[in-house]
């Protein structure tokens, strides 16, 4: 196990890693009788421009690692540097700013704000970044255009299909142009065809815009498309290998 963890070290060591996790432990209910250790010493390094898949059964700790990478939660022990910033020592306000500028979340259930137009949804991270209204609107329209939703800008989430919602969500994740896209089962609620569209979009962002993407999935076929596949089991990374590759985009 130790050896495998060590094997998960960077394949292309140049510059500063985007995600640098060392010996990370996450324990819930610390000091209580029902204390529960979910992650037992994870080492993980993701370099800028990588497309990494994290796979694992449910209960393997996927969500926990995703929450920590996404700066929604702090590690109990060990260190986590995101783009050089120590997450463990960051205040709540700093974490908010990090989530806003450095990370783009894509959720399984889209999590678009109801009764709010697609454009307003995309504008949301820009709103919290303090971007003025006119520039927000322009940026949102540009991003919706990019994900092929330009003609649906004024639609509300309940007027969109699942695939359309996820494309709006990806546009929203891109709003502040974060270096890292964090996608938690982004195709989990979609049929095969729309899953394909969404995956193609991720590949496009990866190749054309050089986005670093961490994809959490339990779909092996989708994981194979990524450059690197990490398998999580019982709170440990048990294997790390290259993906078969993606041939969908020229």
């Amino acid at each position, binding site marked *: 196990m130790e050896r495998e963890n060590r094997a998960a070290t960077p394949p292309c060591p140049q510059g500063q890693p985007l995600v640098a996790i060392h010996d990370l432990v996450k324990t819930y209910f610390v000091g209580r009788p029902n204390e529960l250790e979910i992650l037992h010493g994870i080492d993980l390094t993701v370099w800028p421009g990588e497309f990494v898949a994290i796979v694992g059964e449910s209960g393997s700790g996927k969500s926990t690692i995703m929450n920590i990478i996404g700066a*929604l939660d702090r590690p109990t022990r060990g260190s986590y540097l995101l783009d050089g910033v120590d997450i463990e020592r960051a205040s709540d306000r700093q974490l*908010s700013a990090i*989530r806003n500028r450095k990370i783009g979340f894509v959720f399984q259930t889209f999590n678009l704000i109801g009764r*709010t137009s697609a454009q307003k949804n995309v504008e*949301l*991270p820009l*709103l919290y*970044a303090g971007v003025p209204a006119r520039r927000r609107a322009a940026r949102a329209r540009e991003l919706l255009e990019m994900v092929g939703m330009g003609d649906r800008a004024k639609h509300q989430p309940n007027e969109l299909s699942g695939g359309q919602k996820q494309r709006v969500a990806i546009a929203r994740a891109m709003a502040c142009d974060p270096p890292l896209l964090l996608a938690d089962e982004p195709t989990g609620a979609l049929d095969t065809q729309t899953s394909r569209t969404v995956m193609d979009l991720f590949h496009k962002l990866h190749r054309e815009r050089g986005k670093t993407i961490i994809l959490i999935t339990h779909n092996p076929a989708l994981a194979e498309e990524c450059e690197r596949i990490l398998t999580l089991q019982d709170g440990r990374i048990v294997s790390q290998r290259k993906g078969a590759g993606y041939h969908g985009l020229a």
Partner: protein
Amino acid sequence: MGLLDNIRLAFASLWAGKLRALLTMLGIIIGIGSVIAILTVGDSLTGTINDSMQGLGVSNITVSLTEKSDEEDADSSGGVSVRIFGPSQPADEDLMTDEMISDYRALFGDQVSAVSLSASLGSGTAELDTTSLNVSATGVNLDYQTANNINITNGRFLNQRDLDGEKKVCVVPDTFAEALLGEGVDPIGSSFDLTVGAKVLRCYIVGVYEQEENGTVSLLGSQTSYPIYLPLSTVKTLTGAADGYESFTVVGSDLENNSQFLQQTEDFFASYYTRNPSWTVSASSLESMVSTVTEMISTVQLAIAAIAAISLLVGGIGVMNIMLVSITERTREIGTRKALGAPGWAIRLQFITESVVICLVGGVIGILLGLALGSWGSNLLGYAARPSLLAIAVSVGFSMLIGIFFGYYPASKAAKLDPIDALRYE
């Protein structure tokens, strides 16, 4: 995230749940509405009272004989001389005399601006050709004009020669002149037959005064009784009354210290009556009575407004309740916002803004409703509506405060939500 964005967001959220927002606002609407309505009616009432008193000379001091007894019921009001309809009449030697009054004037000098003396001749009729009008005739001295703000529009008021000569002249209201002689006829120099009881005299009009149209004009069915004024000496001779007064009116020159002057006046005249077994003198002014009444209205107003304010409290709790429900419903939204980088204060501000907007919109609706209700109520009571600007400003401020106060706890709860739990919330 600016305040403007928050306000826009709050309105969008309210609009999305229109019925719920309206029902939530209802408590605030009723609370603010009733407070405004009550204050409007109350202010109209006090305002109208003050206005109508202005013409009557609220600072006039009425000096009158009162019976020495436990039941002091002689405090009946009226800007003009007060007649006492007590169970017993003072004997002629009990009346206040001209000597007392001239002593009084000598002692107080400049402090006395006017001493208005009057004696009632009684109600009767004025007849000219075929026209007959009801009148109430009163004999007055020169100061009567000052004390009662009698505004001569044509001719003159009575003068010293009228008094000295006990002349049969009179000053009549403009409406009387018009009713008696017709429109456009100059009444000065005209005469009519004045009949009071068994006495008949031919009376010459020397002046016309402007009769104010207010509630104090006595109405006898549909027939108006016109107040006309004759020289005091003429009336005294006619009635054969004793040379004294049951009451008269004093106008002080320094209105700032009127209450002190009132007390001095009372003390002065009462000193003549220390040995009198059954009579003494008391002085009173409308001013003191009006301020008592106004204070009473204000107290009642405040009490009712306080009760109405309880409904504001209930309304505020309603707002808090709906905010808590709204936050529970929107837990995932809050989680999403946090994941997208919303700091806690932004979430807090968002929900406080929403609660303030609910309260403010409710407050504005309440104010409009209260004004409408208050005006309607005032008109119903026969007063001109006076919306209290202060009450409106306070209401707006108060509804904002309610919004902040009752929105703070739910908003803080939202701000403190753990983003992971919030995102996982079903």
